[in-house]
C-alpha cells in the first residue's frame, strides 16, 4: 500500500479473533481491535490527528505550540504530528509514571512539564491548584497555544465514531458485536465506538473498564478520576467494572505469550476485563454471540512497569563472578586493613588503590593516587575475569568499607592473592585525619 503521508496510515486496523482455546468461552467469539498497529503505536493516533489536523495551518502561521495534558500515547502521537508540521509540542502532566514513555517523548522533541505533587502542609484555601493555573495560562489573551484538550474535545470522540466503530461493523460483515468492552481513559474511544455501534444496533452492550484505586494502569482512569473527564458520560456504559494492575499484567501475558499480540497493560486489562465479564454470561447462552475489545498500545514501553510489579517475569540467569553469590563467611574472611596500616602499605608497596564510589563523589574528594572505577562498572569488569594481574596488590575503598569487603572477597575467590579492603572506608580515612584531595 502506497501513501503520501504517514498520517494516511492511521486507522483501518485489523480485527483479530482470539483463539477460544485461550479464552475458554464456548459460545462467544472474542475479537481484538488492534489499535496498537496505528503508525505511532496506539489508539490515540486517531484522536490526536483528528483534533490537531484542522488547526495546523493556523497554528503554523501564528507560530503556536501544541499543548496537551497527556501522560503518554496522546502526547506521543501529537509530538510526531507537531514535528511533521514544524511546530513545537508541550505535554503537561502529573500522571507520567512510565519512564520509557518520558524518554521517548524527549527523543521526539517534546517538552515535558510535570505538575507539582500534593501539598504536605495543606492549605484548603489555596486557589493555586496547578491544573487551574494551567488553564488560566492557556486562556490568557495572546497565549500562543493550540490546546487539543483531549478530555473535553468532541473531535476525540468523533475520530472513533467515524473510524474505529464503523471499521468494526464492516469487519463483522455489517453486524455490530453483542458486546463492546473498552478501558476508559479520555473516554473518547469507548464513547465514539459505542455511538457508532448503537447507531447500527441499539442492543449492543457497552462495558467500560476503570482502574482499581490501589494501583494504576497506564492510560486508564480510576472510578473517581473518570468524572474529571469531560467526554465521560456514565450513560454511555451499560456497566462500569474495575480492573486491577494484576489483571492488566495477567491479560497482557496471555496476549503476548499465547495470542501473538504484543499488547501493553491497557490491552491486557481490556482482555481480562472482557473475559471475566463474558465468562459469567457464556454458560447461559443458547446462540453464538460476538464481543470486541480494544488493544490500545504495545508492550515495549512497559518493561519497567512489569519489572516493578512482577520482577520474576524478567528474571535473568545468575551471573558468574558476582558479589551476590558470595557467602557471609567469605565476606567476613575478606582481608581488611586499618587506615594507619593502609597508609604505610600504600607508601611501601604501592598497591593499586581503587575507589568504588561514583565519579561525582570521587571528583569532589578522594585519596591521592587512587583510580576511580564505579562499583557498577567494576562489577561488570569482574564478570569477564580479573582486570589486573595477580602480582599486582590491590586496595579497595568504598564509603564505609562494606562494599569493598565484598569485592575483596570476590577477587579472593577469583584467585587474587593480595587484595585488601580499607576498613571503615573513605569515611574512616577522613575521620582519621588522613589527607583527601580534590583535583
Amino acid at each position: 500500500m502506497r501513501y503520501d503521508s504517514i498520517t494516511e496510515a492511521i486507522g483501518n486496523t485489523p480485527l483479530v479473533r482470539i483463539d477460544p482455546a485461550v479464552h475458554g468461552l464456548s459460545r462467544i467469539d472474542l475479537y481484538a481491535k488492534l489499535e496498537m498497529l496505528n503508525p505511532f503505536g496506539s489508539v490515540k493516533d486517531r484522536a490526536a490527528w483528528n483534533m490537531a489536523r484542522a488547526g495546523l495551518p493556523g497554528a503554523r502561521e501564528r507560530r503556536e505550540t501544541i499543548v496537551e495534558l497527556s501522560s503518554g500515547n496522546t502526547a506521543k502521537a501529537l509530538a510526531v504530528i507537531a514535528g511533521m508540521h514544524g511546530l513545537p509540542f508541550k505535554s503537561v502532566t502529573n500522571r507520567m509514571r512510565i519512564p520509557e514513555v518520558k524518554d521517548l517523548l524527549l527523543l521526539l522533541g517534546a517538552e515535558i512539564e510535570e505538575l507539582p505533587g500534593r501539598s504536605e502542609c495543606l492549605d484548603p484555601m489555596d486557589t493555586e491548584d496547578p491544573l487551574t493555573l494551567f488553564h488560566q495560562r492557556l486562556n490568557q489573551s495572546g497565549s500562543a497555544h493550540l490546546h487539543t484538550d483531549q478530555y473535553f474535545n468532541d473531535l476525540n470522540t468523533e475520530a472513533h465514531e467515524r473510524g474505529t466503530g464503523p471499521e468494526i461493523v464492516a469487519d463483522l460483515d455489517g453486524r455490530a458485536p453483542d458486546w463492546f468492552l473498552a478501558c476508559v481513559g479520555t473516554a473518547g474511544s469507548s464513547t465514539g465506538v459505542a455511538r457508532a455501534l448503537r447507531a447500527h444496533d441499539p442492543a449492543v452492550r457497552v462495558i467500560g473498564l476503570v482502574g482499581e484505586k490501589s494501583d494504576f494502569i497506564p492510560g486508564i482512569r480510576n472510578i473517581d478520576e473518570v468524572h474529571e473527564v469531560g467526554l465521560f458520560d456514565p450513560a454511555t456504559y451499560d456497566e462500569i467494572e474495575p480492573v486491577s494492575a494484576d489483571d492488566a499484567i495477567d491479560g497482557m501475558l496471555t496476549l503476548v505469550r499465547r495470542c501473538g499480540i504484543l499488547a501493553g497493560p491497557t490491552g491486557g486489562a481490556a482482555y481480562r476485563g472482557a473475559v471475566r465479564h463474558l465468562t459469567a454470561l457464556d454458560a447461559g447462552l443458547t446462540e453464538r454471540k460476538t464481543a470486541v475489545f480494544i488493544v490500545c498500545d504495545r508492550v515495549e514501553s512497559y518493561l519497567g512497569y512489569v519489572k516493578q510489579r512482577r520482577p520474576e517475569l524478567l528474571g535473568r540467569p545468575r551471573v558468574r563472578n558476582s558479589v551476590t553469590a558470595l557467602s557471609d563467611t567469605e565476606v567476613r574472611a575478606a582481608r581488611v586493613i586499618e587506615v594507619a596500616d593502609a597508609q604505610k602499605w600504600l607508601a611501601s608497596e604501592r598497591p593499586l588503590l581503587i575507589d568504588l564510589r561514583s565519579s561525582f563523589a570521587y571528583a569532589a574528594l578522594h585519596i591521592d593516587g587512587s583510580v576511580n572505577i564505579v562499583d557498577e562498572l567494576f562489577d561488570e569488569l569482574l564478570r569477564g575475569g580479573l582486570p589486573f594481574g595477580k602480582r599486582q596488590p590491590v586496595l579497595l575503598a568504598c564509603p564505609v568499607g562494606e562494599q569493598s569487603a565484598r569485592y575483596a572477597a570476590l577477587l579472593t575467590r577469583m584467585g587474587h592473592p593480595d587484595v585488601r579492603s580499607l576498613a571503615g572506608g573513605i569515611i574512616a580515612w577522613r575521620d582519621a585525619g588522613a589527607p583527601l584531595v580534590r583535583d
Partner: protein
Amino acid sequence: MDTAPLYLEPRLAPRLAALLGAAPFLHALVDALGSPLNVLVPEQIAENAAGFRSVYRRHHLGGQVYFAHKANRSRSLVRRLTTADAAVDVASLGELQRALGAGFTADRIMATGPKDPAFLWLAARSGITVNADGPGELEALAALVRRYALPRPRVLLRLREFETSGPRTLSRRSRFGTSVKALGPLLDLLERHRDSLDPVGVGYHLDTTSPDEKAIALEGCLRAMDDLRSRGFQPRALDVGGGFGVGYLAHAAQWDRYTSELTAAVMGRRPPLTWGGHGYGLHAEGGTLRGALSLYPAHRPVAGAAYLDALLSQPARTLGRPLGTLLLESLYDLYTEPGRALADQCGLTLARVLEVRHQDAGPALVRLGMNANDVTLEDHGILVDPVLLPRNGGSTGPPEPAAVHLMGNLCLEADLITRRTVFLPRRPQPGDVLAFANTAGYCMDFGATRAQQQPVARAVAVHREGGEGTWRWCLDEEYWPVQEYGPINDPGGQS
C-alpha cells in the same frame, strides 16, 4: 448507591490503642482538667526518632534528626527527645529558649524559618546551627557576630527552585530560601564573611508529597555542595527538610470508598456527605467533576521514616546512583527535619459531648466542649474519625451507627470541628468523650486561641508503668524524662 456508614477509622499504634482502651482514666482526666484536653505520649516520639535513625543506619549515613518543634507546643515531647538520638529544629525565639531549657546542647539545635534580631542573636550566642533563609539573614548574622564578638556560627543555606534538564518538574512557589540561580552571589557573600560565618552545608524544604520533586532538590543540593567546595569551604551536611508525612487511617479501603462516595455526592448522585454540601475542593460543572480534591492523602502506605528510606533509595535523575549512596559517597551527613512524622501517634485531643440535638432529617448535631481551633484536623484537610468513649463505660442497648455533625463551642456559624458528616458506631450522649487520635503533629495546639474566653486545652503527659501497668499522668510542664521523686535516700550518719 451505598448507604452503609462511611467510617474513616484512625490508624493506632499499640500505645495509643491501649490508651484509648483506658476510657475511665481518660474520663477522669477530662473531669479534673476540663474539656478540651491534650494528652501526650512522650515515649512514642523517642520510638519514632529511633525509626528515623534506623533508616540512617540502613544507608550508613550519619547526621541529625531534627524534630520540628513547631508541630507541637508541648514541653514533654521536646524534653523526651533530649535523651533520644535526636535533635530539635526551632522556628522562633521562644522555641529556642524552650529547647535550651529542655537540656538540648547547641550541637543538637538548628534555627529555621524567618528570624528576628533577638532570635538570631541568641542563636549565635548559644552556638546553634542557623538554617539561613537568604543573603539578608546572613548579613545580619555576620554583623551581630562581629559587633558582639560572638563565636562563628555554623550556617546552612536553604535553597529553592532547582533546575532539571529534560522534563521540567514544576514545584509550588515558596516564600522561603534562596533560588539556586542566586547561589553565586550568596557564596560571594560567604567569602566576604569567612571569619564570621561557617557554612556547613545546604538544604531544601519543599511543601510537597511528591518524592520526585524532592529527589530533584536533593540532587541540586549535591551539586551546590560542590560549588561550596570549589570556593574553598568544607561543607559536610545536607538538609533534606521535612514533609515525610503520616498515614492517618487504618484502612485503605475505607479511604478509597469514602473519596469515591464524596465524588458521587459532589456529582449529585448521592445525598451530601458534608455540612452544606461542601465538596473539599471539588465541584460539578455541567455533569463533569471540576477542581481538585483539597484533602490530605489520609491513607499513606509509605510515610514517615519509610518515606525517607524510599527517597534515599531513589536514583538521582542525572547522577544515576541512589541518592542515599551519593550522600554517603560524598561523605556528607544527612539532616532531616520531620515534624508531623516524628509526632505521629504521640498524642490525642479529648472533648466532652455537651449536647446532642436530634434533627427531623439528616445527621444529629453534636456540640463539643472545644472549638475548631483546638483540633485543626480540618484546617489541614485531614479526615479521620474521632473515637467515642461513652461516659458509662459501655452499652445501653445495641450499638447502632449514627451520622452526626460535630459543632464547636463558639457562637459562630463557621465553628464546625469538621464539615464532614461523621459516622460513629453508636449515637453519642452528653457526658461522653470524643477522642481525636493522632493530633500531636500540627493538629493539637497550632491554632489554639482564647476566642470568646473559651479555655485553651491543658496538656498532660501520660505513660504506663512498666509499659504494661497502670496509666500515670502529669501536667505537661511537670514532665521530665527522669523517674526520681526526691533526694536520694541518705542513710545518715552511718559512715
